[in-house]
């Protein structure tokens, strides 16, 4: 089983399963409401031309978040079958 890494450290194009993120903070509450919950699968699509923010695909839509938030989001990369 793969180890958990920060979402910001995930290689571009890789899918991962969300493990956990901080309990408090309005940013993380909003991320939850946007459908990012422990167990949700997401794919890191790309970063903006200047390296920040990140764009991910989750539940069929595209979402951006800054690296400063992504640093606190722990994910488990899904290795290709």
């Amino acid at each position: 089983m793969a180890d958990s890494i920060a979402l910001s450290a995930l290689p571009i194009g890789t899918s991962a399963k969300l493990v956990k993120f901080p309990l408090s903070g309005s940013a993380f509450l909003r991320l939850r409401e946007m459908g990012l919950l422990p167990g949700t699968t997401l794919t890191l699509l790309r970063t903006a031309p200047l390296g920040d923010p990140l764009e991910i695909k989750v539940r069929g839509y595209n979402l951006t978040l800054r690296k400063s938030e992504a640093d606190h989001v722990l994910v488990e990369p899904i290795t290709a079958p």
Partner: protein
Amino acid sequence: MSLPAHVKSGTKQPVFAFVGNPNCGKSTLFNALTGLKQKIGNYPGVTVERKVGTAYSQHGQPMTVIDLPGAYSLAARSPDEAVTRDVLLGRRTEDTQMPDRIVCIVDGSNLERNLYLVHQILDLGRPVILVVNMMDLADKAGLKIRTGQLEQELGIPVIAAEASQGKGLIELKLAMSRPDLPLPHHRWDVPAAISPAVAELQASLQDSDQRPPLIARAEALLLLTDQDQLRVAGSQPLSDRTTTILDGWKKRWVDENTDWSGTLVGARYDAIGTLVAGCVQSSENTVDQSTSDKIDAIVTHGFWGWAVLGGIMTALFLSIFTLAEHPMNWIDAGTVALADAAKAGMPAGDLRDLITDGIIGGVGGVVIFLPQILILFFFIGMLESTGYMARAAFIMDRLMSRVGLNGKSFIPLLSSYACAIPGIMATRTIEDPKDRLVTILVAPFMSCSARLPVYLLMIAALLPTGEVPLMTKVGLMILMYALGTIGAFGFAWLFKRTLLKGEPPLMIMELPPYRRPKVKDVALQMMERCGLFLKRAGTIILAISIVLWALTTYPKSDDAIDPAQQVAQSYAGKAGKLIEPVIEPLGFNWEIGIGLISSFAAREVFVSATSVVINVEEDEEDTAPLLEALRNATWPGGRALFTPLVCFTLMVFYVFAMQCVSTLAVVKRETNSWKWPLFQVGYQTGFAWLLCLIIYQTGTALGF
């Protein structure tokens, strides 16, 4: 369920609320249903757009429809979402009636996240109609949504629609016309860990805040995810008892390390997951890249992304300066013709001068920018409608974050290079109120097109010999634009650290799929915004035009032989002389002072005002006589007035000073108070004065 009394008796129109996530096609549906029968304004006390329209039932009965601002959740994070929440919960009954029925619009291609809001709304226990929009896109994504199944599970009418094609409209109208609507079967288990808190809050909301039971339960659930406690003006506050209970539970959970909001959100998504699993078949693999993803690969590419952004911005400014030229000439010609007609048809006298010079000339001087403003509104609308706006914010976020803003401030600031008014009106897409205010405060530093005539005149007057080398001209022009830009970012940085200190802005933003622009909706929005501007600024511009005219006309002097002498001893002349001690350290005399005062109507008026003051017959095609006169203008004693240093200082003054009444009127509307526009006048003009003082005094000391 029994219907609200007025629906049953038919004495009053039923009120529907349209609710949905941003980009779900809600406004298209609203426009299609209500047509031009819309009333647009603001919710009192808060700058959130309030759209109310009238639709007609199958039987021709009028129905009121409120298009609520787009929201992802009722746990509000922006003023827009706060208004949606408050209207639905009946917290704004003073200005907006609590809707009888709710129409939820969801994007079928993105069902799970869209249903999150619906799940919260179903808690309210009110009659709901669910519209699953963008069925075609869902189809393309390989999703087969069985609306019949959804209808059975939820127990409410579910309508499949493609709003952009007009599909589903009739079905929606039929459902809205039904005299009775079933209530949803909406049972989901509140997680055990938090259900005692929900029960206690619900009881308090019922007793102390007089909420009906179901609303109380829904509100209790919301309060637990509503971390921001975002309150906007016009929203009725909660009772102390409820607040105390809420704080008590939160404190307890923090101590126990309970993730209450996460548990609650998780429980909702679990319920949605079960629902979707039963009603949606995902037939194809979703590994295939969608068209939108393919476009994004280019549009947000490290090199091509910048090229596309640069290309779009170039097209924007080219069309503003070329397409707007002809209509601007027509307006100009129309103004002149109107003034001539008035002159021909009226006896000479003060009244005639008031109408021709004051009203027609003054208002015409601002209305001439209308074509540019319209084009900007159109472009901004197109960028929003296609989905590119979010990409521009995504690309620019990193740069904007340097001064503490986020990418969404980029387009408003950029638009301000043409005119600050559309720029300031476009700041509504910025969710964070502080970020929005900072953007509004610094937007007028961007050199708008009304400053161009002043820059051009001053550059031409800069060198006494007449011929200014082309490179100097271009260099000076670029310098002025650069100074404004640096000023805007500098002050944004400063404000974010001092006056409007807040949390670092988030960049949690949906990148909606690219869509074909809905030109009709964009045009409608463009006309609305334009109408709002004319209504807001029009009266103020009219008033200022009359005042400025009176200032230059009175008191009348019998021995004034030419207009220049008349102006010199008018109130404006006196005002110019009055402020002369203040502007003299900048190298400006009272004649320039009159020009500065006149600029409050619109900055380019400086040119015509100066022509009158220094007594040249104005000729728009040829500025040579004016230039000649500028070069000959002197201080008493024969020292030249418009030295190169003074010309340069004056240009810098125009970059920074706040001199535009139309902008102030719009800022007043967008910030809902006179405090911020007055602050702008103070800090911008104060900074302009200080900077010009430094430039002029240093320049003089160095012998320029």
